[in-house]
């Protein structure tokens, strides 16, 4: 005899008996072939720095967001355009033509020097996060450089700041790292994706603590 009513058994999802393994951000990221002009690179393959250990692995490479260069690029363009504008006026009419030409060349020399210095300052002021430490490389001027580093296990607090229209629009901000080492504060200024940087640092800290508990300290 056919059933008139068959109640459907409610399928209750089984309770999870174990927690899903926590995603570690930097380990999920593929190694990247390093674009030298990039502001953020995960696990760069061809990056070396002066104090790097042989078995040290670079996790994160950072420098200021490219948009921060806009100011000096505009200034450089104004510098390049200035001689043409000056020659349109009659300001230098009393100056002999050979002097005028040399003045123009000197002006362009100074403009190129300004461009090179600004570019080099942006290009070489970098922050590196390895699996063991964080490194801040600063070139202040032509002949003065400062390299400071702190072990990951010395990191006490990591915060990031992001505010303002341009920073929100281009997604960059400052990451402040407080440490218990000789250099108390590391400031990763105007770096892209500060939230991801903080996450990577957090993952590395947890991993370092795990290693310390398991006695796998290098």
């Amino acid at each position, binding site marked *: 005899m056919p059933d008139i009513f068959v109640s459907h058994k409610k399928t209750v999802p089984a309770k999870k008996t174990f927690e899903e393994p926590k995603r570690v951000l930097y380990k999920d990221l593929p190694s990247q072939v390093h674009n*030298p002009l990039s502001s953020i690179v995960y696990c760069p393959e061809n990056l070396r720095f*002066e104090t790097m250990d042989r078995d040290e692995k670079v996790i994160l490479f950072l420098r200021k967001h490219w948009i921060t260069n806009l100011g000096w690029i505009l200034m450089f363009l104004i510098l390049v355009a200035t001689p043409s504008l000056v020659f349109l006026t009659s300001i230098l009419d009393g100056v002999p033509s050979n002097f005028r030409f040399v003045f123009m060349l*000197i002006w362009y020399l100074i403009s190129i020097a300004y461009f090179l210095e600004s570019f080099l300052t942006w290009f070489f002021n970098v922050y590196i996060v390895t699996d063991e430490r964080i490194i801040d*490389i600063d070139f202040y001027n*032509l002949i003065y450089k400062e390299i400071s580093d702190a072990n990951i296990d010395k990191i006490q607090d990591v915060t990031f700041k992001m505010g303002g229209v341009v920073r929100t629009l281009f997604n960059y901000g400052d990451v402040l790292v407080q440490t218990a080492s000789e250099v108390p504060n590391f400031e990763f200024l105007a770096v892209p994706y500060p939230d991801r940087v903080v996450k990577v640092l957090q993952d590395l800290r947890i991993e370092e603590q795990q290693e310390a508990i398991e006695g796998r300290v290098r």
Partner: protein
Amino acid sequence: MIIPTGFTIWVVIKILIIIFLAIYVIFSLVLIRQVQLMTKTLEIGFEKQLQFFSFIHFLFAIGVLAFAIIIL
């Protein structure tokens, strides 16, 4: 009548320009050294291009100095 003042002014300016350009050549040499040190500190894969640019800048500075000595 020759007015020596005008003549002297341009000679003084020429000497000042040449001194400035000589200092600039030294600066461009320091820049080459700076790039060398920077690329030694941090190898990113852009070293040859940067060294090339700094060397071209140095040659340009020497060229302007030589040109100024000849033309002025």
